[in-house]
């Protein structure tokens, strides 16, 4: 089996983001960037499947500006075999991302495509499902457990009510939850080795897909601030405040 894993470069999850004063977006200059957290789970799962002898090749792909390559390099350091970087200059919408990925899937013919269930920057939670639709493949979203069977996957999904288990035939798209596995750290020798693994560069404009925005971002603003609260000295005081001041109990 061949697995294509899509990774996205985002502002690191620990960074407290700042909104630009002109309302055009959030500050990204000199801000720590890293791989979208559930995309790390997607890579880890692909590597585990390969280690179990059930996959032959893992290809990591990212779409973004020049520096987005770092996320592919990191994927190569934890076990992906080769990389693809599709270059775009601007931020593109999940629909455009899924159209680009479709082109790559048609070229690479993977059996499975893995990616994180949601990017923590735009919080859209769309790309995997959209790619599945465009390819007319089955989708297994929010996966917290994957079992590889003959030409099928048994996937446990995290849903609001609890857990759901479905079986999808291969080829399939899986979007990964943070609880799917514990992503490993790359060892120094593997980081060195990853530098020699190939990353193919493709210009999005050469793929012949429409990636123009359909959604206009009119403004980005800070959410209303909560007014500062108080510290209470004791449980008794807390209960009195909740009853008499906030009147919520």
């Amino acid at each position, binding site marked *: 089996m061949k697995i294509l894993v899509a990774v996205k470069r985002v502002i690191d*999850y620990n960074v407290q*983001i700042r*909104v630009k004063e002109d309302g055009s977006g959030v500050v990204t200059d000199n801000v720590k960037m890293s791989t979208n957290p559930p995309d790390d789970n997607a890579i880890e799962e692909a590597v585990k499947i390969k280690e179990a002898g059930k996959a032959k090749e893992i290809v990591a792909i990212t779409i973004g500006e020049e520096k987005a390559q770092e996320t592919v390099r990191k994927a190569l350091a934890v076990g992906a075999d080769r990389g693809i970087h599709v270059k775009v200059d601007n931020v593109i*919408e*999940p*629909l*455009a991302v899924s159209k680009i990925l479709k082109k790559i899937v048609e070229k690479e013919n993977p059996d499975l495509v893995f990616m994180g269930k949601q990017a*923590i*920057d735009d*919080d*859209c*939670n*769309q790309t995997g*499902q*959209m790619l599945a*639709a*465009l390819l007319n493949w*089955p*989708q*297994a*979203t*929010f996966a*917290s457990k994957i079992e590889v069977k003959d030409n099928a996957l048994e996937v446990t999904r*995290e*849903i*609001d*009510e*609890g*857990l*759901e*288990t*479905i*079986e*999808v*035939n291969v080829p399939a798209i899986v979007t990964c939850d*943070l*609880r799917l596995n514990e992503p490993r750290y790359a060892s120094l020798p593997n980081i060195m080795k990853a530098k020699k693994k190939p990353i193919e560069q493709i210009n999005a404009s050469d793929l012949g897909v429409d990636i123009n925005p*359909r*959604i*206009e971002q*009119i*403004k*980005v*603003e*800070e*959410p209303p601030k*909560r007014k500062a*609260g*108080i*510290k*209470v000295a*004791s*449980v008794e005081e*807390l*209960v009195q405040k*909740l*009853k008499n001041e*906030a009147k*919520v*109990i």
Partner: protein
Amino acid sequence: MSVLLIAEHNNKEVRPFTYNAITAASQINEDLHVLVLGHQADDVAKSLSEVPNVKKVIHVDNEIYENYIAENYTTAIIKHAESYSHIVSSANTFGKNLMPRIAALLDTSQVSDIIKVISEDTFLRPIYAGNAFATVKSNDKKKCVTIRPTSFDPADKSGGSAEITKSDPAEASSSTKFLKKEEVKSDRPELGTARIVISGGRGMQNGENFKLISDIADKLNAAIGASRAAVDAGYITNDHQVGQTGKVVVPDLYIAVGISGAIQHLAGMKESKVIVAINKDGEAPIFSVADYGLEADLFEALPQFLSELNKLNTIQK
């Protein structure tokens, strides 16, 4: 222009967030139709026809819709999509799984997780775990929108009498099979709609200690939440997780116990009306959003809290 809302239900009852989504959908346009895809879900169709905001219910009954197989749902929805300007659903795991599949086939760029309807094409949505709000305008002819249910009040459930139309099923997918659902049954209120939520984090140290939380939840008729750290550590099941990648809750009272307040947790609860934080680390970020902070060892504070609540009830009697 009319709006098609995809109902979430369990074939017997309408799932509560559908009513919140109805409120938002009817703000987009009053000509709101609801599509019920289900198996022997006549009661669901009937309940929805009684919602005053609903102008028409389309009911498709087939065993292929017994469970939410997004592939099967999508083909049925696409069949009806032509007559509508907007296709909408709630932005919970139901809608998140389903809507992008529809949007891609309609070649529409989806607007996810809206918290306000500004006009029929312009919406407010949180980005970066709710640390920024974006006003976005969709320029697609047909719009696919998911609605953050906790940002809208539930619609009135009775007094209406919309027409129910039956419609034929679309083709089923042979490549996806439902195997099982492990639903956690509880007598407590649902996390997403509860008036009071009490949540535990890594500070709880193990699953048994959540009993301290559940005792208080019983007393207050509250739902139980958890931070991602507590779920990852196996103290409690995933359906309790509050946060950017879990559930977003907006209760009247949110009590965070032993939760440090990581950005991704705050994303799921900081719109709550009143927030209480109990943590022994006075520097924990959770205190920055708390209306009432108690710097204390939770293992001492929680039993005291319960006994103070008990006293209170005695007074009320």
